[in-house]
């Protein structure tokens, strides 16, 4: 058994009308921007709610969670002196809101978990899925990530000095359907998810993880695409799109003051 990527897409790839992806109007109306972004990506990735209903586990990841709703509720608490508060943003501020919504929409009663570990959130989710698939505990897993930019968080992160030297803020959602069996249409195999407990250079990655000299090493894509906690998921999504059959790709990411993470991929 292995860990194969059957499909992986980002929020930029969602083409289907949101009314088809999330049929209930009242549910759509209540959803915040990040919720819509993440949930539509998840449904599109599974090619509909019916296929989503049958995945064995739903594993989501986010560094900062649903920031806009957290802020909305916090502003109300402070601004209204703790009186007459609308509970909707509080309900939607929890980190597992996306995972919960996906389960709710597709009536999926399987395992449902959310990793919230800053720049490692997505890689932790991926490791969890990788273990479950390799060990035969699950056959199909939906793994995803989401983070959103808000005006306040952008201001605060700028004040902290995060976006110097041309580094931009970023956001996005990525969802992947992973399977334990190699089936027609699988795009790549995940060979390993590693946490080296240090900051790695490209040379370090080559020495420690590359199986040959033609291995492609992709370092820190956040310096180009924007810096946010789950940016590695975007890097994985782009890499799978361009990977050639038989090619080995190492994705190494180091950001937000944490140690490096390494994902090793092979094109199918």
């Amino acid at each position, binding site marked *: 058994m292995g860990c194969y990527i059957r499909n992986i897409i980002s929020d930029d790839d969602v083409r289907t009308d949101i009314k088809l992806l999330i049929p209930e109007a009242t549910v759509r109306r209540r959803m915040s921007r990040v919720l819509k972004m993440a949930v539509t990506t998840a449904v599109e990735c599974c090619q509909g709610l019916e296929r989503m209903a049958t995945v064995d586990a*739903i594993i989501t990841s986010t*560094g*900062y*969670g649903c920031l806009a709703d*957290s*802020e909305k*509720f*916090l*502003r109300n*608490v*402070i*601004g209204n*002196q*703790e009186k007459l*508060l*609308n*509970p909707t943003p*509080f*309900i*939607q*501020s*929890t*980190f*597992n*809101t996306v*995972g*919960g*919504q996906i*389960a*709710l929409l*597709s*009536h*999926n*009663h*399987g*395992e*449902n*978990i*959310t*990793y*919230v*570990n*800053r720049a*490692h*959130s997505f890689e*932790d989710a991926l*490791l*969890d899925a990788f*273990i*479950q698939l390799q*060990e035969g505990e699950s056959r199909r897993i939906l793994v995803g990530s989401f983070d959103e930019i808000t005006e*306040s968080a952008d*201001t*605060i992160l700028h*004040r*902290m000095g995060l976006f110097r030297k041309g580094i931009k803020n970023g956001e996005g959602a990525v969802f992947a359907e992973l399977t334990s069996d190699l089936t027609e249409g699988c795009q790549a195999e995940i060979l390993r998810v590693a*946490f080296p*407990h240090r900051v790695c250079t490209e040379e370090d990655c080559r020495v420690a993880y590359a199986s040959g000299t033609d291995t492609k090493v992709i370092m820190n894509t956040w310096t180009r695409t924007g810096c946010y*906690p789950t940016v590695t998921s975007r890097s994985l999504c782009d890499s799978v799109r361009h990977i050639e059959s038989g090619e080995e790709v190492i994705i190494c990411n180091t950001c937000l003051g944490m140690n490096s993470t390494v994902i090793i991929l092979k094109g199918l």
Partner: protein
Amino acid sequence: MEIVVSGLGVVSALGIGTDANLASLLAGQGGISPRPAILSTGNVLPVGELQLTNRELKEILSLPAAQTVSRTALLGMLAAREALKDSGIDPKSNVGLISSTSVGGMDLTEHFFADFMDNPSKGRLSQVRMHDCAASTMAIGEYCGLKGYSTTISTACSSAANAIIKGCNLLKYHILDAVIVGGCDALSAFTLNGFKSLMILDRDYCKPFDAGRAGLNLGEGAGYIVLQRSEDCLNPYARLTGYANANDAYHQTASSPQGEGAFLSMTRALSMARLQPEDIDYINAHGTGTPNNDLTEAVAIQRVFGNSIPPICSTKSYTGHTLAASGGIEAVFAVLSMKHGFVPAELNFHIPMEHQLIPNLQMKKADLRNVMSNSFGFGGNCTTLLFSK
């Protein structure tokens, strides 16, 4: 492969450490106070608050008074340190940490935000650096000197129970040799007002499974257990024989009338442990005291156990609902109950609810071979853990 519990650490409204918490549970003495004394809020509502300021907590932890640390992390450090010490394992070996939280550093962020709202160039940045959930985990790991893999989970009120499950997987597949698992959450105006806006806070002390229950009391604390593979631990407290994470898939905050998620998590955990319902000697219930949760949990328990329901207690009548920490605190309580052979008495219970699920009313000495602990949360998350002698 068997996974065993080799260390315990807990902080709650009952105090710091397993001794203080155990003494209160045995004596039937709750820790909920009539109103917050340390949290700054205008709400007069009962809370399960640890009666020590952040400054006092830092002193106990030998941290500099000037260091800005979220209360969530301070509570976590106390409990994780105790669990690690109790297990006797060397922090420099391949020991990991799977922590969980639902509010993260919100207790600091809400102070920052009051200034920031007036003027976006105001507010001390040190008060917002610990906002994200990972910050508390990183602070705890650093404080305990841990070197192994570490991560953070947040699935609302089932968070710590899920952290415990994920710790098992990392041991089974030899990514770690020992792991501290559990959760931490401090009281914050954000969560207190959040649950108030949902109208599920009892104005009085919470009354799990009582007909007159009117909601939960919010609490704070941290609970961690140390897990190891059985071959690496000579004298464990208990074995973790079963667990399951299922989703109710019914509503974002409410649970289904048939308690489908809870039914699934309990039955899947039993089947993993190869145990029958009659093998369970005590259920540490989720039992928040909200009309919805307790009814659904009772229905689900009746579906699983039929007419022979084992003794039940929700220790939230002692600690309040400590959100992400609750699964960790209650795992510690479940193991303590097993070790010391007792079922705690439910507090504040007077009138049975319509489903006639009557919790254990007098502290009862009993040999407990298998104990079940339930944790359910927003987003339909339902997790059950099974500890065995």
